[in-house]
Structures are given as structure tokens and as C-alpha cells.
């Protein structure tokens, strides 16, 4: 792994999340395993934003849910502020959950349509027994709404009265209610219109500066991730294939998959597009039910060698602190 940051808020080691595939109704038997996350390690420093990118099915969202212990971990450890929480039961997770919160992709599906905004934003306070003083509670909810750029008098309205961008702000206010250290944001702007995305991205950045938040920012949009992240981990089929600082990754990607991803993203300037060589990789991400042997990317890699078909490349740390799992760089 990349040189561990000095004061990691989150340290994930060799995390695996496997889902059994069963067949039969009465006599259930396991017929296969989806290795959604299969040996992922990374850490996030205090106040840092780690971008987690990859295409659908690469395991980035599963990683986020497993870190929050909203999914069962098959093996590996998750350390939050130095504490190994991977074996914690519900009761012991409760105080930890207050410190790590999630912001979801879909601002329509993640807010209860029958609850007023005040109740949505204040619910975490109620759940954690912080709502006994009604005046204080109301003031806190008003504060939270203000913090995300909503007006306090919106508290009495229902989610359907808000636009997508405003709903995402409500979701962020709810996530901030318990003053968390870490926010896991799963595609938080991808459902929003382009003119609204920038508003929410800017809000995330302002809140981080003001509150010293640490983010894991999961997204497939490489331009948005580049804008918001300090470091970026690229995932492919349940594994991290490259971790590097933003400038390292975007200026000089080492892994052929990272290179392919970046080449595939069009830049909003026709004159630049004309000059860009288009190396388009073929094929699609293979099934996580039967990942290819050796390097998982070898079936699509333009630079695949003999060794890639049989030997799984280990993550190798480079002199400049970045890490890559590719035989081209293990020599």
C-alpha cells in the first residue's frame, strides 16, 4: 500500500467481501461466490479526500458499505481512528456510526417522503439520544440546514418540494448531524444535473475546510474525482490496481487500466480532442463470479504479457509513494 499517512482516520487492510450464490429453495446450497471486494487495502489521513474510482461492478460501493459495517466483512480489517472495528457487533458499532456517515447517490430514494426535512435531518440526533432539549435540538437542525445552504424555514417542508440539488443538501445535513469525522460519499453528485453538480461539489469542499472532515469520495466521473480528491485509488474487479496522489495519477498514470480510463474520458474542448490519441480498450468488465486468473485486467489490457495470464501481480510501492499492481512495474 501507499505509504500510510501519519494520522489515518481510516485504515483498511486486505478487505474481502464475498457474497455466496445459492441455489434451491428448501435445500439451499452454495453454487458460487461473487468476490465483490477481494483484498483491498488503503488508508485515509485526517482531513484528506480519497477518491475511489472504477466502473460499475468494480466493488467501490461495496467497499464503502463494508467500511461502515453495513455489509458483512468476509475477512480483513477496518480500523477507524486506530480502533479495529471489523469484529464489532451492532451495539459496539453504535457510537462508531455516529463518527462515520454516508451520503448516498440518489437524493430521491434516500429521503423518506413522509418525513419533514427537520425530522430527516434531526433523526440521527433522536436515535443517539441527543434530542432531549427541544430548543437545542431545533437550533441544531436550523444550524445544519444553514450549513448546507438551505433556509431554516424549509425545515417544515417535505422532500418532494425540493429539487435534486436541494435534496442532496438535505442528505448532507443529515450526515453531518452527529459531527462525524468521516463521510463516505457514494456517487453523491452523479444523479444531479450538470449545472447543479458544481454547487454540491463546492459545498463538500467548503464543509471539509470548515469542519476538518475526512472524505472517501466514491464516483465514476474522473473529472469530478480529480477536482475534489487529494489521493485516488482506482479499482477494477474487486481490487485496487493503483493508488497515487491526484497529480501523479492524472499526469502520469502507471497502470494500463488507469491509462485506459483516462483516455476514455472526453475533454470539453474540440481542439484538444482532435489532438488526443484515442486508445480505446476493448471489451467490458468480466463477471466477478469468475474473475480471470492472473491479473484480472489481462483480458482487456493492451500491454498484457505471458506472465499476466497466470500470476496475480502484487501491489508494489514505488519510490515516490504511489502504488501499482502491474507486472510492467514489478521488475
Amino acid at each position, binding site marked *: 500500500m501507499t505509504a500510510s499517512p501519519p494520522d489515518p482516520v481510516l485504515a483498511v487492510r486486505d478487505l474481502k467481501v464475498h457474497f455466496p450464490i445459492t441455489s434451491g429453495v428448501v435445500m439451499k446450497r452454495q453454487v458460487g461466490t461473487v468476490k465483490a471486494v477481494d483484498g483491498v487495502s488503503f488508508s485515509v489521513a485526517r482531513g484528506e479526500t480519497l477518491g475511489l474510482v472504477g*466502473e*460499475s461492478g468494480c466493488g467501490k460501493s461495496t467497499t464503502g458499505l463494508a467500511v461502515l459495517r453495513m455489509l458483512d466483512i468476509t475477512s480483513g480489517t477496518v480500523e477507524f481512528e486506530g480502533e479495529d472495528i471489523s469484529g464489532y457487533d451492532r451495539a459496539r458499532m453504535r457510537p462508531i456510526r455516529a463518527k462515520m456517515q454516508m451520503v448516498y447517490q440518489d437524493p430521491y430514494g434516500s429521503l423518506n417522503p413522509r418525513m419533514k426535512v427537520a425530522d430527516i435531518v434531526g433523526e440521527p440526533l433522536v436515535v443517539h439520544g441527543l434530542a432531549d432539549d427541544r430548543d437545542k435540538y431545533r437550533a441544531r437542525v436550523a444550524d445544519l440546514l444553514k450549513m448546507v445552504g438551505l433556509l431554516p424555514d424549509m425545515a417544515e417542508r417535505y422532500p418532494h418540494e425540493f*429539487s435534486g*440539488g*436541494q435534496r442532496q443538501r438535505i442528505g448532507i445535513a443529515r450526515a453531518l448531524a452527529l459531527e462525524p469525522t468521516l463521510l463516505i460519499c457514494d456517487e453523491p453528485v452523479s444523479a444531479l*444535473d*450538470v*449545472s*447543479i*453538480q*458544481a*454547487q454540491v*461539489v*463546492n459545498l463538500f*469542499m467548503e464543509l471539509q475546510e470548515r469542519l476538518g472532515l475526512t472524505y472517501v469520495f466514491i464516483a*465514476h466521473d*474522473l*473529472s*469530478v474525482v*480529480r*477536482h475534489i480528491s487529494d489521493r485516488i485509488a482506482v479499482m477494477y474487479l474487486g481490487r485496487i490496481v493503483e493508488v497515487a496522489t*491526484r497529480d501523479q495519477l*492524472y499526469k502520469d498514470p502507471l497502470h494500463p487500466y488507469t491509462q*485506459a*480510463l*483516462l*483516455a*476514455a*474520458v*472526453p*475533454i*470539453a*474542448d*474540440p*481542439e*484538444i*480532442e482532435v489532438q488526443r490519441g*484515442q486508445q*480505446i*480498450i*476493448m471489451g*467490458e*468488465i468480466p463477471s466477478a463470479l469468475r474473475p480471470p486468473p492472473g491479473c484480472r485486467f489481462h483480458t482487456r489490457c493492451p500491454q498484457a504479457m505471458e506472465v499476466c495470464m497466470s500470476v496475480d501481480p502484487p501491489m508494489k510501492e514505488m519510490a515516490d509513494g504511489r502504488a501499482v499492481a502491474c507486472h510492467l512495474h514489478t521488475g
Partner: protein
Amino acid sequence: MSAPLLSVRNLSTRFRTERGTVRAVDNVSFDVAAGETLAIVGESGSGKSVTALSILRLIPDPPGRIEQGEILFDGKDLLKLDDAGIRAIRGNRIAMIFQEPMSSLNPALTVGLQVGEPINLHRKTAWAKALDKAAELLGKVRIPDGRSRLGSYPHQYSGGMRQRVMIAMALACQPNLIIADEPTTALDVTVQAQILALLKELTRETNSAMILITHDLGVVARYADRVAVMYGGRIVETAPARRLYKSPRHPYTRGLMLSVPRLDGDTERPLVPIEGQPPDLATLPPGCAFALRCKDATERCRVERPPLVESEPNHFSACFYHDRLAA
């Protein structure tokens, strides 16, 4: 210049809803030349998809209705054709590719039948021959082993493969015009690049024109010859792609470009969002639809609707102050 392949004139499409009449497309005019790729860019609710559906008369009536305008295709007004007439055009001379290939393919029919159908229908080709042609088309869209996959059903294909099937269907009768409505929005970025490159290559081969509907300014920059920007059901700016990106002459276009992070952008520069929300089409203001969000809007913008005028040769803007933006 010879007459354009498609000429849309003053098209208005409305929907009657509980909340009143929604002017989804409001007096829109544009041309597409043979072999040209025109991108229609806009956010959700801008009217770009309704424009596309109106061209092929696929607007469900009620609640929708094409209220006025002309859609001249090869000189013929599509709005004046009877049902048989428009059916002879659809999938034949003008083909459509939708965003979600899973819901636009029939799950109960084999891929071969679906790709072969337009050939059988429009070219009056016997099924055996149509299936031969379908296999050839699947090869063209790089579906390996096309012949043996004719008997497969859509669910047996991946998302990218399904979109390739859609393209094969669209190309079956070598249409003069392909309308692609967000054809890659549901796909991953590496697959998006494959599909769009394929579409571009195949349309070039058959000299088909394309209307590419998208919200992604990067996709537009890579693939479009000309761009029309829609906002609030209207075209607010249209220009050759290079011109538009180099010197946008409508504040909405300019705002969009500043608000979207770029892969090569300056990460120290904060994004400049467009404040506010896209307009509610049921309660559009009398003036410019963008006036409420425009930093430079004046009283005139709020009461008077700015016409689309030629700001410089081939570059049209619907802003009273387009000249100021040129500076």
C-alpha cells in the same frame, strides 16, 4: 449550400398535465445537413428528448401534442404524413437509438429477430435473407460470433453489447439520419468510448447524419460537428462545435462550461456553479428562460423574450447581449 437533410421549423410540443400546460419544446428551429453530426445539449427538462421524439412523431397523444411547426425531411413535412407514411420513415430512413437498451429491446424476442425486423419490414426481404443481414450487422458492431448469437435474448447480453444491438438495428436499413438519445449515459466510460467511436465510424461509412442528444460537454467536444444548446424548451445557442467552445455567446452555455470540472482543468480554480435551479416548464417567465439564474440579466430579459439571432456567421444566440459576450 444545398437544402439540408432535415429542417425543423418553429416546432412546439406541449404536454397537458395537472399543473397546466407544459411547453416542453417551444418554437424550436434547426437544420441537419447530410452526413453531419449535430449535438443537442441540455439538462433534464430542457426539451432535448422531446425534440427528438417529435421528429419521429413518437409523442404520446394525449397528454402530448405537437402544436405547431414543420419537420422537413428531404423536403417532405413529416408532420403531414399519415400513419403509414411515418412508419415507412421510422427505422428506415430515420432510426433512433435510446438511452436504455434493456427497455428498448423486446425481452421476449431473440436478437436476430429484432435486428432482422426492419430489414424484413422495410426492404421486403425474406426472413432467411434478413437474418443473414442481421448476422452481418452484428459483426459490423463488433459483436463476436454474430451468427451464433442471433438466437440469444437481450438479457444474455451485457449493457454495452445491448447498445451495440441497438446500433445494429438502427443501421439495418442504412438510414439517412440517426437520432441517438443519450446513447451511452447508462454505460461505463470505457464502453462509452467504444460505442461512440463505433457510431461515428459507421455513420461516416454510410454518410448518415446524426443527432446526438447528450448532457455531456466532453462527448459533444469529441464527436459533434455542430451544437445546439437547449434550455427551458428553447434553443439558446447554436454554432459549429469549435466556435461554441471557443467563444460561447450565451450566458447559459458559458456558465455550463465554467461549472463542469475538466480532466485537464486547473484544480486550484474553484468551480463556478450556475446558481438556482433549471426552470419549471409549467411556469416559465415571459422573458428569457435563463433570466432568473443569469448574473447579467436586466429588466428587459425578464419581460421580453430574446429571439435567436445570428451573432456572427453561423453562430446564433438567444441573448440580447450576445455582442458583449463576444468580447
